[in-house]
């Protein structure tokens, strides 16, 4: 599978501080790629380097097979960008924004998206609600028929209905061969939308896997009810944590293989057993905290 984005050993330093530390990433073409991390982890710096707003200190970034630094201008014809804090001109109307950007890049699907999002183009941006500003910023990302969307928290300020419209739009975009690279704090959103995910922490990528793998391989939550009192000492096992329960109930968080827990539970006459994959949030809390 071709890579839409290839980041090779990228470091970005600000003086003595390393915002990105030897980051390597591959974003497959036609996928929706989630980029997660706590505040200050380096997500926005990574996105600014992809967009050539910032220049990397070491390493290389290639986008759609071209060097992101030297061919940045040509690449931007193929990239739709939405920053987390997209500032629009307060004295311009939405129509002026679209005319200006579309006049340089070509209009692409903007007319269709204006209808889809039901955006009034006449008012000046300073008179728009934050949700409508976000709608305009999303539509601007689609100016010029991009092949790759780079979006920093795209659903910020959108109501649930519009969030779902955006999810459909992104899925449709990916289904037609487009690639989406998005950062988000909304883990449920990433879980339902993304095919692949990477986690960045203190400037380093600590995980980069397919969503199915990351959810299945990492953490299980086990809730068991037995006919007699459960001795929690039986569950002092490697990578197993007792997170709740008392008496005949026990709740466990299992990192890695679940087999030793099943064997320990087999000593009890169980009346109920529930094993679930941890939500993405639990998985990422593991990465964030450890």
């Amino acid at each position, binding site marked *: 599978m071709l890579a839409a984005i290839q980041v090779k050993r990228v470091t970005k330093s600000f003086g003595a501080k390393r915002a990105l530390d030897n980051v390597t990433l591959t974003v497959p073409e036609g996928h929706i790629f989630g980029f997660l991390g706590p505040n200050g982890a380096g997500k926005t710096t990574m996105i*600014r380097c992809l*967009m*050539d*707003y*910032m*220049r990397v200190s070491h390493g290389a970034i290639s986008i759609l097979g071209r060097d992101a630094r030297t061919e*940045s*201008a*040509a*690449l*931007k*014809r193929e*990239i739709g*960008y939405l*920053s987390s*804090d*997209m*500032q*629009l*001109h307060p*004295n311009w109307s939405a129509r002026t*924004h679209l005319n*200006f*950007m579309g*006049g*340089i*890049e070509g209009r692409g699907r903007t007319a269709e998206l204006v209808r889809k999002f039901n955006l009034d183009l006449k008012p000046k941006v300073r008179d728009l609600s934050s949700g409508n500003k976000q709608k305009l910023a999303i539509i*601007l990302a689609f100016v*010029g028929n991009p092949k790759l969307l780079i979006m920093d928290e795209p659903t910020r300020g959108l109501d649930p209905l519009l969030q779902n419209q955006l999810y459909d739009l992104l899925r449709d975009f990916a289904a037609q061969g487009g690639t989406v690279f998005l950062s988000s704090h909304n883990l449920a959103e990433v879980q339902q939308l993304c095919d692949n995910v990477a986690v960045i922490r203190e400037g380093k990528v600590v995980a980069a896997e397919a969503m199915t793998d990351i959810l299945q391989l990492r953490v299980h939550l086990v809730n068991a009810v037995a006919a007699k009192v459960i001795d929690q000492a039986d569950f002092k096992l490697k990578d197993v944590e007792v997170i709740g329960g008392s008496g005949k109930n026990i709740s466990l968080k299992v990192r890695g293989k679940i087999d030793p827990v099943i064997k320990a539970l087999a000593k009890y006459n169980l009346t109920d057993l529930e094993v679930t994959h941890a939500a993405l949030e639990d998985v990422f809390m593991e990465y964030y905290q450890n």
Partner: protein
Amino acid sequence: MWQITFRELKDRKWSLLAYCLGSLLLLWIYAATFKSSQASAQQLLEVVKGYPKGFLDAFGLNNLASNSIEVYLNAKHFSFIWPLLAIILALSRAGSQFAGEIQAGTMGLLLALPLKRWQIFIAKYATGLLTIVVFTLISVFGIIPLASAYDIPTHFHVLVGAWVLTTLFMGTVYAVSVVVSAWVSDKGRVYAIVSAVLMLTYVANIIALLDDKLSGLKYYSLFYYFNTAEVLDTGHITTRSLAVFGLTIVIATVVAAWRFSRRDISV
């Protein structure tokens, strides 16, 4: 790329119009008061004849005996009020075009366009230069119709010289301001840094004119080369002024373009 230039000109047309109208209004006042001031020029000459030459040069009072409208404009307008207007306009444009847009975050829209950084720089810089040319054309040649309304003769070659010098002066202030604006991300810092530098060079020129021992300081002042007294009297611009302003503009522009093309922009 020129859409950026066109859009910026459109966005800032009202402020440019205000500066141009303000300048025309001042020229009108000077045209209207020129003839009556001629009568009192002799009295003023008597008053200032004992003053040091440096003082007269510094405040544009060295050609009071001349009876042309251009010399009168130098004394009243081009030696103090016009430079102030020009500096404010050039500095505010330069500050808001680069550092101001980075500070406001709107630079992000431009950087997302399929344009090289230097193309964005040139497009914005062209807006600044066009603004300067329009302002200097109106604020210099605007005197021709206003003076003719009062039957006052004007001297076109003198005004051409004045236009070249004022354009070069304003262009220099703009280019130097753009260097600072391309370096920092806060337009307030641009205004503070450039104002401080201009203030220092102005004071240096005044000190150089008043004290012979420190006369070498004048070579470090932009205002020394902005010799409107000579230009508005004879239409002649010294080669030194042309060279200093021209070189400063070229060097500052190259440095600003280089810096803007290479810097990190956090938007």
